[in-house]
């Protein structure tokens, strides 16, 4: 009985996704005239057409998104863990104050900072490269992950550090040998969230990547739709399905770590 209820609710939640998948297999003109889930004709051409609908083809966008995502993941893992170690274990003046400022950056909406940021990056000649999107990550600007890792490190017993210190370790070695190996769940959470958020981010990529050769998946997907003219919804849905596959896989693989990471950091 409980399962039946869960399946039912699950179906309701999944309905839009199922509808998208079904619609990606329908001819354009049928999509909005027959709103049900039952397919009366299978049309797989949407996938081929969608793949080649824009120039360059969709493979380029997938590749660009992948490069961007990998860069952001590496940047976040390296920089946020170091920043978090500093906040959790080091003593320096104004630590609380800096921590507060760091958390405050979460509340700054992107629209406020986008123009000065754009001016800065365009002066550096970085517009139309992935640099404006990756370099900030290397500087631990994702305060959410820093906070997540700080909470995690605070949960690790200090005795471990002290034992290492007695054995002659300085901060670099304590960080690399003791803290980092114990932080795996938090690192996994960071990896997965960075993946999903970067893969789905639209605004930054729209602003900084102007050349179609540099477009990423979200920017390309949006280029299919224009509310003023007829849109090839079939192709767009097909490509949406394609772009969901990596996210789905990432979640499938990382789900275990994700739950663990949240369970061990959020509880405090």
């Amino acid at each position: 009985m409980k399962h039946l209820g869960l399946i039912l609710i699950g179906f309701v939640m999944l309905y839009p996704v199922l509808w998208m998948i079904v619609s990606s297999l329908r001819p354009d003109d049928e999509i909005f005239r027959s709103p049900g889930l039952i397919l009366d004709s299978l049309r797989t051409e949407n996938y081929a057409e969608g793949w080649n609908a824009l120039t360059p083809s969709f493979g380029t966008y997938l590749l660009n998104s992948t490069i961007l995502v990998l860069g952001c993941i590496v940047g976040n893992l390296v920089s946020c863990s170091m920043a978090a170690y500093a906040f959790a274990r080091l003593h320096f003046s104004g630590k609380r104050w800096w921590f507060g400022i760091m958390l405050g950056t979460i509340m700054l909406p992107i629209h406020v900072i986008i123009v000065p940021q754009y001016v800065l990056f365009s002066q550096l000649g970085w517009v139309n490269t992935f640099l404006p999107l990756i370099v900030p990550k290397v500087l631990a600007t994702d305060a959410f992950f820093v906070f997540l890792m700080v909470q995690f490190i605070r949960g690790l017993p200090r005795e471990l550090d002290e034992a290492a210190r007695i054995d002659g370790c300085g901060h670099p070695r304590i960080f690399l040998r003791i803290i980092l190996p114990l932080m795996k769940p938090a690192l996994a959470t960071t990896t997965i969230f960075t993946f999903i958020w970067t893969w789905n981010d639209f605004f930054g990529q729209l602003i900084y990547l102007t050349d179609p050769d540099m477009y990423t998946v979200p920017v390309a997907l949006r280029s299919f739709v224009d509310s003023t003219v007829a849109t090839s919804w079939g192709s767009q849905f097909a490509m949406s399905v394609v772009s969901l596959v990596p996210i789905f896989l990432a979640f499938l693989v990382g789900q275990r770590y994700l739950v663990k990471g949240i369970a061990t950091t959020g509880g405090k």
Partner: protein
Amino acid sequence: MFEGVHRRTALTVLLSLTASLLVACGSGSDAGGELTAEPVTLRFSWWGADDRHKRTQQVIEMFQKKHPNITIKGEFKEWNGYWDSLATTMAANDAPDVMQMDELYIASYAERGALLDLNEAKKHLDTANFDQKALATGAIEGKQYGVPVGLGMYSIMANTDLLAKYNVPLPDDTKWSWDDLKKVGDQVSKASGGTVWGVQSPGINDTAGLSIRARQQGKALFDQNAKVVLPPEIATQYWTYISDLAKTGVAPPPSVTIEKGSAGLNMSATATNTAAFGLWWNTQLTALTAASGAKLKLLRLPGESQGKPGAYYKPSMFWSVSSRSKHPAEAAAFVSFLANDEEAAKVLLTERGVPANLKIREAIAGQLKETDKAAKEYLDTVPVSDPPRITPKGGSTLDAILKRHTEDVLFGRATPDAAATAFIKEVQSEVDAAR
């Protein structure tokens, strides 16, 4: 621009930022100089969907073949993203050289000095074959900030398949009134037993519907000095009409109207065969016919024979050149190519509207689909009056404001009277704030 478009309001902030950054720049260009033989790269940005991207990229290649030293980098976006990105790049002094411009925004950008007066580049930009009334839509105080690309006209689209199905005769559009539209719509609603509505609630997303009402009574939204001169009675009358349609079941209930209104063309009542009449731009006939699979016929607007004609040419979009382009002469030459080249026109066809260039319009006539031909014929034959004043600077939120008040009226949160007064006040203060 057209029915079903969402508009960003938050960007007014960015636009005013743009203004402050733009002060320092004049055009000071060599727009009248010779075309260079050096290699030049121009950035060209437009909004649209995949079909437009393809056609435009093809035309870019054709131009590059003719001018091997000029490289055009095409950047395609969709509507909302386009304006977000344009406002940001403008503020950072990094705008594309050639851009697609919309009527709502052209004054906002031009009056802040962001667009080149194309008269300076006359040597490279040929506008001889344009209808003067059409060309005037891209000019502000004698300065040509945009070349109109395509023209559209508001029209009523009638689904003749539905009319035949419910035995409702097609009304005579040369002398019908708004009341006639309501009557015939009511017949359809009654005959279908509630499955199909008579009229898709007209003009809820953009101000053209209201503007036409005003024009038919000899009034307008704005006067030449960008003052809102719309008499509140006309706005009251407009909203009373729309809410009557919804209340009497001639049009869908408010929730459906609002949902469909923001869902885009393919999901509209006309495209899904759930309304017999709808107010649309004549150029959308092809897209709507494809989406609905039914026979659609373009009718003249109601009320045109009772008062003054309210119909006018609406430029679907403009080609504009950035005032800070480093290569204004080459940019102008590219715009000229887009506007005048017959080979290019044969690729672009009517995707951006029926061409405003009369020579081009005839040149492609033979290649047009039935529905495009009907749209062209509508444009060629239906009488028009002078275009309304270009939406003034600060007016780019006009449609969003109208939509909000329409929702208030439809859902009974405001009377048409109250909405009319509030609407006029709000628009005036937006325009004043941008001065």
